[in-house]
């Protein structure tokens, strides 16, 4: 029998994600990938996988899964929730640690508590054939992942490995800083000049709140409206994840990893790539503030972040 995880309960929105789908935005296919790339890579490191190995991303409420393989090793990163093992040797494994489970074990993740997304990596990865170069799920286009959709009860998600060796388990050297209150750094533009000076000041000095309308496509924010200086309907141009577009209502929308590839609203600023995972954890109802940096600084912060992930992967603590 092929090794797999059986979905007992799917959670709210659980999908397969890897490093993302690059090279198809010109035909309207977004990159997808996890909302929180840092957690994907740390979870993969804990189970000994290379960065970007296909894993499960869950939003707000995680799944309950049953091990249908001789054994598996999993790790959860990106939230303060834990893996609850509910059968056999019942126990709780906190986020940020690897654990080996055996055939028939049922484990549940439940509410993610303070985070909107988290990743569960599995040693060897999920056995999901790439579509357009990636295993990531783009639900709106029914592209990639497990049948192009989020998981449902009784799905059987195939694994690459039939079993994993008993070895020392690992923990992150310190818990991932979820950065729940960290200001989000942005580069102004590409269309900051479509807004009044007052609007740019308002964006950078106000408390916004993540609204309940937040998903992998984008987060609508609540807070002070931003005034357009040259109208809100522009001729479409390209969109990157992190773009903060402002429609007629004046309320900003942070576009995320399943973003429309082109769009017709002006974009006042763009979240830097190092902070997309921070936004990717921020839950509806939580505050969000913005601070401007220049491109050079944004690039430096991203390199620093990647170096920190590599360092963490090399200094995991044996348990």
């Amino acid at each position, binding site marked *: 029998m092929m090794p797999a995880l059986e979905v007992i309960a799917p959670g709210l929105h659980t999908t397969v994600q890897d490093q993302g789908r690059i090279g198809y935005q010109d*035909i309207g296919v977004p990159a997808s990938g996890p909302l929180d790339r840092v957690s994907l890579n740390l979870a993969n490191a804990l189970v000994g996988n290379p960065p970007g190995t296909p894993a499960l991303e869950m939003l707000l409420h995680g799944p309950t899964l049953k091990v249908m393989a001789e054994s598996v090793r999993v790790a959860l990163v990106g939230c303060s929730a834990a893996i609850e093992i509910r059968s056999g040797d019942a126990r709780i494994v906190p986020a940020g640690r690897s654990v080996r489970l055996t055939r028939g074990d049922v484990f549940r993740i439940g509410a993610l508590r303070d985070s909107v997304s988290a990743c569960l990596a599995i040693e060897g990865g999920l056995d999901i054939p790439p579509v357009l170069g990636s295993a990531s799920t783009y639900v709106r286009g029914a592209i990639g992942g497990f049948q192009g959709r989020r998981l449902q009860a009784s799905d059987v998600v195939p694994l690459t490995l039939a079993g994993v060796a008993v070895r020392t388990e690992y923990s992150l050297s310190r818990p991932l800083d979820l950065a729940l209150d960290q200001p989000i750094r942005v580069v102004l533009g590409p269309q900051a000049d479509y807004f009044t000076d007052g609007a740019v000041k308002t964006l950078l000095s106000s408390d916004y709140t993540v609204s309940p309308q937040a998903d992998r496509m984008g987060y609508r924010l609540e807070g002070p409206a931003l005034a357009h200086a040259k109208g809100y309907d522009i001729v*479409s141009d390209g969109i990157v994840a992190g773009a903060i577009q402002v429609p007629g209502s004046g309320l900003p929308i942070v576009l995320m990893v399943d973003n429309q590839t082109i769009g017709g609203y002006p*974009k006042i600023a763009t979240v830097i790539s190092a902070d997309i995972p921070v936004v990717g954890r921020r839950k509806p109802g939580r505050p969000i503030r913005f601070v401007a940096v220049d491109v050079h600084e944004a690039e430096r912060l991203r390199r620093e972040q990647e170096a920190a992930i590599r360092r963490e992967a090399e200094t995991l603590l044996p348990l």
Partner: protein
Amino acid sequence: MRLLPAGDTAVIVEFGDRIDRVVSDRVLRLSARVRAANLPGVVEMVPTFRSLMVRYDPLATDGASLTVAIESLLDSGSGEAAPVRLWRIPTCYAASHAPDLAEVAQRTGLSTAEVVGLHSSTRFHIYMIGFVPGYPYMGDLPAPLVLPRRADPRIRVPPGSIAIATTMTAIYPLESPGGWHLIGTTPVRLFDLRRARPALLGPGDAVWFEPITVREFDAIRAAVAADAYQVPCETAAA
């Protein structure tokens, strides 16, 4: 022309702020030049009506050097245009396949035959692909066919629907919501994940709509389902 940062993962080269063939040609020409230059760290390019978005990996290059490299590839704007792919898309305009054709005729003051005649005797230019995977924005419509979008967008538009709105025409590649007027249907598959390039059409391509009967529509649809149909395509002057 101006170069604008889109965070630390893209540079946008903006040539204008309107839908215009001259702007589009400059966007597409630069896209071809950047592709040919094979610049380190460039991940992909997204041509749109007004601009070329050049996405990069901030771990492999940086916005400042990429900006310099792109500036050196800009031309004076008068280069000769490369030949393009010209597609002939079989299109059924029968009432059964064109739910909004009668209304479009009525609103434009034309007969349905005149609407079809104008739509099928125009060579369209693909400005960009987006909205949903494989959705081509094509223009420009002859002036008498220009209408605003429907006041009441549909929740579900079937794949293959051929639509018009404002100065544009398009083909819905997948079932999706849509606010454009549906004036025909093609049996051709616009987006197919089994192909290496899943979108049939690309930015810069040219398109003719070729009227077919319901009987021809059914025959082509059967051939498409059996993977036994090739959309007519030739190379043509831009």
